[in-house]
């Protein structure tokens, strides 16, 4: 094992140690466990977007649609179908992923700004459906009347409703599953074709990679991860909101990914942490909290174009 690999292993262990011990170190620093849970869920969403943006090089400005669909999928399952948290998560993930797969067939034909515009347009379609279909989705008031259920292990049940710590560790487990899957894919031959497309689409095509098909697969996988994150978000709040589908929410995810560092695997998690913590703190001080987050975003883009994590990595190198 060379020095670079050892350094990466140490960083990885530090990240997981910080996540595993978050309920213990956050409180003394003025945080709380539910905040850490939100960071994890929104971090997973930003990492899901970055799976497409940072590693395939295509910018979706409508990924909140699949996040919101995941939330509604989980909420509707718990409210109308079955009182099972795992099934709700699966339903949310499937709803986001399948809708992404179908729309992706149309979206991947475009590139650049047209790709981004089409993703926004399709995203807004879902927003208005959720907004208008009050009888099913609760309309502007959002979907209420469901709550996350205890996890039944047969011999015992894990209470994730009233215990914030239990819920945090449940979400951390889900987060670990999803990011492991992402990491596994990115290290695979398929993952390398994604990076090839990001680096040089024309060369990829002339290496025998059917670029549109590979972008579609990456888009679909990204939507599955996004749906999963959205389903977890519905469980965090016991609520699903049409604003979770809105393009401004997509913009927040892009901001998290870019701010943290879209060329790095963990960058979006750092971006989400900064975003969520600043939102939590500043929104208690001023209603114009977004101005400050926006200012930070501009500064990061201007002075650290590779994002916060990209900057740290470069400084060490």
């Amino acid at each position, binding site marked *: 094992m060379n020095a670079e690999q050892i350094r990466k292993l140490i960083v990885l262990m530090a990240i997981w140690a910080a996540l595993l011990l978050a309920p213990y170190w956050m409180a003394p620093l003025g945080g709380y466990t539910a905040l850490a849970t939100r960071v994890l869920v929104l971090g997973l969403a930003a990492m899901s977007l970055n799976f497409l943006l940072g590693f395939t090089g295509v910018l979706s400005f409508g990924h909140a649609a699949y996040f919101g669909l995941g939330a509604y999928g989980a909420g509707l399952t718990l409210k109308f179908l079955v009182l099972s948290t795992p099934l709700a998560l699966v339903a949310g993930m499937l709803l986001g992923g399948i809708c992404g797969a179908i729309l992706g067939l149309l979206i991947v034909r475009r590139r650049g700004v047209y790709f981004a515009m089409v993703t926004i347009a399709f995203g807004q379609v879902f927003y208005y459906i959720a907004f208008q279909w009050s009888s099913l989705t609760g309309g502007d008031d959002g979907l209420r009347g469901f709550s996350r259920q205890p996890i039944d292990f047969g011999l015992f049940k894990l209470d994730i409703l009233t215990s914030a710590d239990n819920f945090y560790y449940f979400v951390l487990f889900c987060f670990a599953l999803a990011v492991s899957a992402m990491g596994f894919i990115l290290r695979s031959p398929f993952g390398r074709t994604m990076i090839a497309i990001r680096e040089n689409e024309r060369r990829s095509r*002339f290496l025998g990679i059917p670029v549109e098909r590979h972008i579609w697969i990456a888009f679909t996988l990204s939507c599955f991860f996004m749906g999963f994150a959205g389903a977890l978000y519905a469980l965090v709040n016991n609520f699903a909101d049409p604003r979770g589908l809105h393009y401004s929410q997509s913009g927040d995810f892009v901001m998290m990914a870019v701010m943290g560092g879209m060329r790095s695997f963990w960058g979006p998690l750092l971006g989400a942490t900064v975003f969520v913590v600043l939102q939590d703190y500043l929104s208690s001080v001023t209603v114009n909290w977004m101005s400050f987050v926006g200012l930070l975003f501009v500064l990061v883009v201007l002075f650290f174009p590779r994002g916060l994590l990209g900057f740290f990595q470069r400084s060490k190198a």
Partner: protein
Amino acid sequence: MNVLEINNVTKRFGNLVAVRDVSLMVAPGELCAIIGPNGAGKTTFFNLISGYFPPTAGSIVFDGQDITRLATHERVVRGMARTFQITEIFPELNVFENVRIAAEVSSGYRLRPWINRTEAAQVHQHVEETLKLVGLETKTDRLVGELAHGDQRAAEIAMALALKPHLLLLDEPTAGMGDQETYQITQLIRRLHRDSNYTIVLIEHDMRVVFHLADRICVLDQGKMLAQGTPQEIAANETVQAAYLGHAA
């Protein structure tokens, strides 16, 4: 059987006829050079062969199969590889990673979520052999974007070779190079042709390179095939001299 048969291919862009009724046969193991003045339609002709866009008329047969309407990646899968006048590489990946992507695609692993140790070892070996062939074996962990122009071109050729092609299309392989780099790339192409018996079609401006390497030379002028023949025949052809070599002399 010819590796490549191009039959009466024409390409129109609106009113402009970039390639007009051009035919070309390339035999196995042959090195065919395409020359012509700027704007003669050489790169357009290459783009037609490699599937960058379809011809307006005519047909292209590769290894006995009609590929006229096939997409680029489908032609690559059938054994056609190409390099570009302006080098097309993955600049932020290192030399090994650049060639590994090509090797994995040619091994049929491009959709695989994982490969086992044996498969990975075979890919690794294939990449190392290819890099040795082009003389980049000591620069495997260098970022391609940071290499000298000649080495970038060699890396691009290595990516094409890693696809195990039956036909190699090289678009101005010595463009923008100094004498030393031109010599190295020329020697590389010569080795690929003479020692490894690759079938090669190349576009080239440098007449020293063309006459040094080619078995056969095709001259394009204003989209039309002006002449085809051995280097000696082309050198003696008065029409070619008037249209092309005459200006260069």
